[in-house]
């Protein structure tokens, strides 16, 4: 365990970015999966509200995420340096730098979610001013196509997991010791995205029964990747983690909220479906705690020397 590293001071802005981008990508992934797997019922059928909910959620959240990323920079006015060369103004990307690839990923995914959002506006019958109305109609035909759903799913999966690869591609304690953070974030993103879609769909009067069959698989993935994450970090880090009550507490509460509470509520929901929104809220809260615990891990658990 290398504790001589300096703290990058990735604080609350980044925790919120990881969390909200996770919800946005997870929700959009669920929308794409529904369109791909249940195309018969999604298109104008019972699942339309659910599929559309992911598009309602993703674009506004990605807009917030872009702002969070810019605000976190030391020099926000230079945010475009992430995408374009400062001198030539030509696009540039470093394929071995997760942050460079991620910046392009965020841009592309934001555009994809924007298309989805405009398409949803069009389907909902919202009246838009002249040029936007044409664009939204065009987006409507694009967004329900098979290639768009496949591309959207790939983008969403990338956004939900690259942040984990970004943390691993460092020399910080805990982060650099395991290659499982990306997979864990992906699982958590799909979990929180599904929960967000259920909440929005319910608010819009949709039926979310199809996603309820999907959820246990996501819980299983979250638990598995969390166990793999903890078991793959160095023994010294694990000892520190174990001794520190905060670390264990946050992880335990996260598991409780992400998996156990919704599972218990699901069991109870056999009698009353009114309990289900509480399960979704619980998953969303647990997802935030998970991101907080992992982003703050090097400073909170190991206190690297500065």
């Amino acid at each position, binding site marked *: 365990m290398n504790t001589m590293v300096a703290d990058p001071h990735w604080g609350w802005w980044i925790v919120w970015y990881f969390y909200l981008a996770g919800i946005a990508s997870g929700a959009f992934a669920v929308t794409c*999966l529904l369109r791909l797997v249940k195309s018969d019922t999604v298109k104008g059928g019972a699942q339309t509200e659910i599929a559309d909910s992911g598009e309602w959620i993703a674009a506004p959240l990605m807009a917030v995420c872009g702002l969070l990323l810019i605000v976190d920079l*030391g020099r926000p006015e230079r945010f475009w340096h992430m995408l374009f060369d400062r001198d030539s103004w030509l696009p540039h990307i470093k394929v071995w730098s997760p942050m460079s690839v991620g*910046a392009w990923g965020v841009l592309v995914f934001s555009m994809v979610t924007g298309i989805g959002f405009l398409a949803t506006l069009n389907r909902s019958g919202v009246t838009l001013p002249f040029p936007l109305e044409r664009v939204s109609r065009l987006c409507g035909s694009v967004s329900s196509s098979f290639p768009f759903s496949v591309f959207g799913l790939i983008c969403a999966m990338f956004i939900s997991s690259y942040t984990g690869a970004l943390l*691993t*591609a460092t*020399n910080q304690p805990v982060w650099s010791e395991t290659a499982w953070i*990306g997979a864990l974030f992906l*699982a958590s993103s799909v979990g929180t995205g599904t929960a967000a879609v259920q909440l929005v769909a319910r608010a819009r009067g949709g039926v979310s029964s199809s*996603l309820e069959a999907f959820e246990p698989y996501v819980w299983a993935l979250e638990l598995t990747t969390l166990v793999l994450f903890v078991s793959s970090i160095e023994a010294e880090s694990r000892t520190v983690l174990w001794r520190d009550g905060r670390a264990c507490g946050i992880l335990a509460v996260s598991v409780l909220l992400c998996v156990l509470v919704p599972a218990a509520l699901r069991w109870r929901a056999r009698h009353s479906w009114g309990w289900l929104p509480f399960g979704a809220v619980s998953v969303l809260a647990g997802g935030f705690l998970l991101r907080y615990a992992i982003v703050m891990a090097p400073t909170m658990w190991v206190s690297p020397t*500065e």
Partner: protein
Amino acid sequence: MTQAVGFFTDTSVCIGCKACQVACHQWNELPATNGGVVPFSGNSYDNTGSFSDLNWRHVKFIEQINEQRTQAAWLMMSDVCKHCASAPCREVCPTDAIVVTEFNTVYIRESYCNGCRDCIAACPFGVIHVSESKKIAQKCTFCYDRLQNDLVPACAQACPTQSIQFGPLDELRSRAASRVRQLQERGTSQARLYGADETILGGLSSFYLLLDEPAVYGLPAEPKEPAKSVVPSSVRAFLAAAWVLLASMWSLRKRS
């Protein structure tokens, strides 16, 4: 034609005078912290504690006293950016602000940096920090401006004991190898080189002769190249994504 240059820091002759720190501050116009009022750190004669945006060199003092308090050793080391061949900071920098110069040193182009701090997370030596005034990453420039004018870096010029030696990298490496041999022949069996060969991040342009384990000096034994973790991390994420896809096909179709 320019050639690869480096620092060979022989810690066996460092006397902890901090002339290197002062010279670095003076040449690079780095202001004193806290208006020049520096409280005791409680860690021997170390008054800066670590690298910072204003301290690009850091003289470490390591007091080694046995349990019976009958024997004591005092290790000193002037630490600086290692200017790694495979620099983790340069690998991850998304704006290409960090580059390798014609002297084979690692340099931050200030006008490119946007203060994302990925380089700080990647550096295994805790070298880089963000300037509170400029809000961009800061570290040793290897006195790039001096090198361009055929001048020796300020720290090496100021070192009174030749602990910090500057010169062509190949020449420094052979000089370091013979110095280790000399010390070992005189009975200092613990003498060893750190970063002189390619085992650590492809080789360090600023390498060290140490008198104990690297960890004693706060140097990681096996620093990681961040780019090498991208593929394993991506493979695991891909497996998780495949699970989600299969689970959705199974569970969502089942209900339709």
